[in-house]
């Protein structure tokens, strides 16, 4: 049976500090496409010039914006806070989620979910250490792309201490390790271990409820997830595209609002 708006596309746009994520869903909530555009001063200012038609020939029925730049997207029909969208997207993908850990470009969020509702959250927006921006910076120092860093084969499990809790000083420590001829894969392994420990402290302070899902670009760094599971002593689920869950949630929220409006 053909759904009444099966040909329609509902867009979710997550305007983050490091990237703009776009997800399109159909009337049944199935993901049709996703795209990631790196944030730079030009596209932040010209965000309304993104050509959504390149993703699908079908009519765009709604655009729901989220992320810190959501109010810049004038084309959007609706906007919703990122944490709400993040939770909405993850609940769509997994049932019975208790905690969502999201490491974004400029902050870290821990979201407690119960019965499909956000009941509490913790946000660390004071410190750059452990955020996506910090990882980008470290990859740059090591002369690697983010993809190369995330897929690098870790030869042994040894870690060298990266003790600093500050992104600026951690950077200095990494430069010192390079100067000491420390193996790059060991530096990366140590960095992930250090980041996992730092994040785990915040997560533990907030409280952890089973089932745990990790979102954000750091989710593709398998070694980091390995250490986070080790430190938190729990299984962590990472979606196939961990950067897109907030955009997915926005698309679904926009879809539901539009379908309610249209009486579908």
């Amino acid at each position, binding site marked *: 049976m053909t759904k009444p708006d099966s040909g329609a596309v509902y867009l979710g746009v997550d305007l983050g500090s490091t990237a703009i994520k776009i997800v399109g869903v159909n009337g049944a909530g199935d993901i049709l496409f996703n795209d990631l555009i790196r944030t730079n001063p030009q596209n932040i200012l010209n965000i309304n010039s993104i050509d959504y038609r390149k993703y699908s020939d079908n009519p765009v029925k709604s655009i729901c914006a989220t992320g810190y730049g959501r109010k810049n997207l004038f084309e959007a029909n609706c906007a919703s806070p990122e*944490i*709400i969208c993040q939770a909405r997207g993850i*609940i769509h993908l997994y049932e019975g989620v208790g905690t969502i850990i999201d490491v974004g470009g400029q*902050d870290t969020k821990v979201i407690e979910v119960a019965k499909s*509702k956000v009941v*509490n959250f913790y946000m660390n927006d*004071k410190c750059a250490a452990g955020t996506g921006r910090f990882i980008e910076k470290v990859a740059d120092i090591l002369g690697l792309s983010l993809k190369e860093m995330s897929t690098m084969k870790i030869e042994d499990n040894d870690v060298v201490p990266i003790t600093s809790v500050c992104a600026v000083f951690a950077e200095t420590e990494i430069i010192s390790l390079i100067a000491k001829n420390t193996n790059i894969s060991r530096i990366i392994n140590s960095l992930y271990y250090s980041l996992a420990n730092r994040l785990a402290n915040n997560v533990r302070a907030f409280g952890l409820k089973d089932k745990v899902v990790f979102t954000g670009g750091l989710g593709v760094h398998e070694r980091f997830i390995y250490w986070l599971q080790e430190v938190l002593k729990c299984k962590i689920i990472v979606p196939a595209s961990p950067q897109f869950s907030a955009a997915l949630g926005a698309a679904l929220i926009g879809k539901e609002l539009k379908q309610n409006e249209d009486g579908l």
Partner: protein
Amino acid sequence: MKVGYYCPLVGQEFFRQIGVHAVDLRKVKYLHKGAVPSEYSADRCDVVFWLSDLLKNNDAPDVLVLTNCCYEQEKLGDSLQSKGGLPVFKLNIPRNTDSVAVTYFAEQLKKLLLWLNEDFPVSYRGQKVKCLNEKLPCLDDGCVPIVLSGISIPQWFDTVLEENFMYPVILDTCGIFYDKNDSRQEPPGNLVKYAEMVLNRGRCFRCSACNASNTVLQKRIQETRPAAALYLANEYCTTAVFRYPYFKELCDKNRVPVYKITIPNWQEPTPQVLEQVELIAKIVKGRDESIF
């Protein structure tokens, strides 16, 4: 003569009684340019940066009354006094309410009067005047959250709250426990009685909430029965951070969910702060139904 003051505990009401023009500096709309004034180190409280910049304006008050409510205010007073520019009176407000504290506070008020008299003849009149308490918490049934601030609530935060909550109860750190009935009270005929009235009726969070068994705050939470509580702290104010556990314990006892928001900039909101307020509003409003 224009008197500038920051603490409403001895604010508009007292200055009206003694017949001077007084300005609540927290209500002056002024945006600090952002740069750290050269006389301060960068890790100082940005409220002090704002205040010290404001005092350089042409329409700045002629004299300033500061209180002992925080270390930063005391340091600001020292700094202003050492430069010899704006005359500053530092008023000590005791944290106790016993007879010794009342006498001490009355003496402090007398000293303030004498100090003001050096330039301008003033006296305590004890006349019936309309009392203007700055922030009276509304006790309507429709109140959604209770906002308790560990710091002085910035002007922009009021707007952000109004955008997100229909009936926010705002309990500023300054004079939070003023009651509607108190505001109708006739001022006592002498300074000792006035001092007693001030110390006994309106205790700010700084003065009185340093223990978990704070009955006044507990009473206020029980009266307002808020759906949630927000605690506002400033990144540079350790005092506000240290007081949070007491507030949280009290809210937990009364089964009121509490959210802490730490603002990095007292003068302007950051996207993260706006995000948090908006999110808390959604969580609070969506308590009885799915937010999705």
